[in-house]
């Protein structure tokens, strides 16, 4: 979304200058990037880098062509990994948000659960992965369980603290208006906690991708993680690198997607979100009168 610019001449000049600066920056970045790739290529061709472990950029490029176009085998695995990430992320964070709300709203529950939360917080969640596989067997179920496990905690803790730290002045306002507990929850506590819950979701999504890879490293049947294992075992490092760079791109896209989601859900925290909802509310009011 680009904010509507005023046709003011001064503003126009300012954006022109900003655009020039941006273009110059992009050119610099591109230059540095090409220099790195080129020195890598040269170092590899000159024999300074062992091409077995550090494949040439040109070889990686070739592998991209191979696994995406000629063989096309990467698509399937990409799809598998992404479905896993999605399912585990949604499952883990829904669980985290629901349990976080319950524990945050119920003082008794909170007191009894606190020691376990502390223990769980101190334990690296991924260490439990082999146990989950032992319990649930190889396959999609245990993979999703692993991702849910690594995704659960950040939304849980953030929802918990968001729900507990509700603004006391606003609470008093709602009480003075005679609001019911349910109204306080729906109209105050949950919306008030949304920004901090979304921050937890961001952490969870990053964890989800790592969790999926660990699950695939252990199970070695399908998915990008398994593919990387197979390529590395066959000493096809160029293709392994192509997979890793694919994940880089995926991580980037996921990160951007999360930003879009954040701007949609926590709209009042962002200028363009406010503008959008403001226009929508105006329309709704004008449509009815």
């Amino acid at each position, binding site marked *: 979304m680009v904010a509507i610019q005023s046709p003011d001449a001064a503003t126009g000049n300012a954006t022109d200058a900003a655009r020039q600066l941006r273009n110059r920056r992009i050119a610099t970045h591109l230059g540095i990037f090409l220099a790195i790739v080129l020195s890598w290529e040269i170092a590899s061709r000159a024999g300074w880098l062992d091409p077995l472990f550090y494949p040439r950029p040109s070889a990686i490029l070739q592998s991209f062509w191979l696994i995406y176009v000629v063989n096309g085998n990467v698509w399937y695995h990409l799809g598998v990994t992404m479905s896993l990430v999605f399912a585990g992320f949604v499952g883990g964070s829904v669980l985290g948000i629901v349990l976080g709300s319950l524990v945050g709203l119920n003082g008794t529950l909170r007191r009894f659960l606190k020691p376990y939360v502390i223990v769980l917080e101190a334990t690296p969640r991924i260490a439990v992965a082999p146990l989950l596989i032992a319990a649930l067997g190889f396959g999609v179920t245990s993979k999703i369980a692993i991702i849910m496990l690594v995704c659960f905690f950040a939304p849980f803790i953030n929802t918990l603290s968001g729900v507990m730290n509700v603004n006391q002045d606003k609470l008093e306002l709602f009480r003075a*208006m005679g609001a019911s507990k349910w109204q306080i929850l729906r109209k105050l506590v949950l919306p008030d906690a949304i920004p901090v819950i979304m921050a937890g979701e961001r952490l969870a999504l990053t964890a989800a991708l790592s969790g999926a890879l660990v699950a695939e490293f252990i199970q070695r049947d399908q998915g990008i993680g398994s593919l990387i294992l197979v390529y590395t075992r066959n000493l096809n490092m160029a293709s392994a690198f192509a997979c890793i760079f694919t994940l880089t791109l995926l991580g980037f896209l996921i990160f951007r997607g999360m930003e879009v989601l954040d701007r949609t859900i926590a709209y009042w925290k962002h200028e363009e979100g406010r503008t959008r*909802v403001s226009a929508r509310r105006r329309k709704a009011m004008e449509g009815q*009168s």
Partner: protein
Amino acid sequence: MKDQIMAPDTVAADIVVSGRGVGKTFADGSVVALKNADFGIKRGSFVSLVGPSGCGKSTLLRLVSGLIAPSSGAVTVHGTPVTGPRRDISMMFQKATLLEWRTALDNVLLPTEIAGTPTQADRNRAMDLLKLVGLGDFAFSFPAQLSGGMQQRVALARLLQTGADILLLDEPFGALDEFTRERLNTELMRIVAEVGATTLFVTHNISEAIFLADQVFVMTSRPGQVAKIVDVDLDRPRPLSIQTSPAFNALVADVRETLGAV
């Protein structure tokens, strides 16, 4: 002046808020926030509650609103004892406490939503109230886009949206600069006169208390109590310049003396 207009037998009926022996001691028993307060507030009158900070002004207001229960005595509103928050009372605080995720209009509509499902008439009323407080052009703005003074205006519109005939304001403009506060006070006077509400207004500013009110409850601390009730017989509408008149200064001296005597 007012007393002469009223027939003697309507006097009791015209008291809409009254307290008899109202006291509040906080949980641990060591803080006596309010002791043995007796008062009556006439229908449509504007009462200021003035006193040093910590003397129990907010406590008295919250007792009237039903947010807290008295330790002794009772508060009666419209003839019935206050047992909890009620719809004929509306309250406003020092902080605007707007919901950041709602537009100004939706913030004003909040009390209506709490009470039920807003109708188109409610929405139109909220819009009219925003115009009344001078924010007609900002109905669809979010709190983050409004200045402190504008936010407090939204809170004022929300206060009036309920249609309650008793308004409780706890230092509503205390956090604003003096110019904004004076302007909002003047508007508040005009608006409550227009809607005919009974108003209880907390402040620690003596001049402000007198300027706005028909009656000033002067409170003193340790323990918090209503030490004196001062009648303000100044004509309305009151220009800002009235604050330099001899009659006004005499009232200030009266209040100051009560406050200083303890």
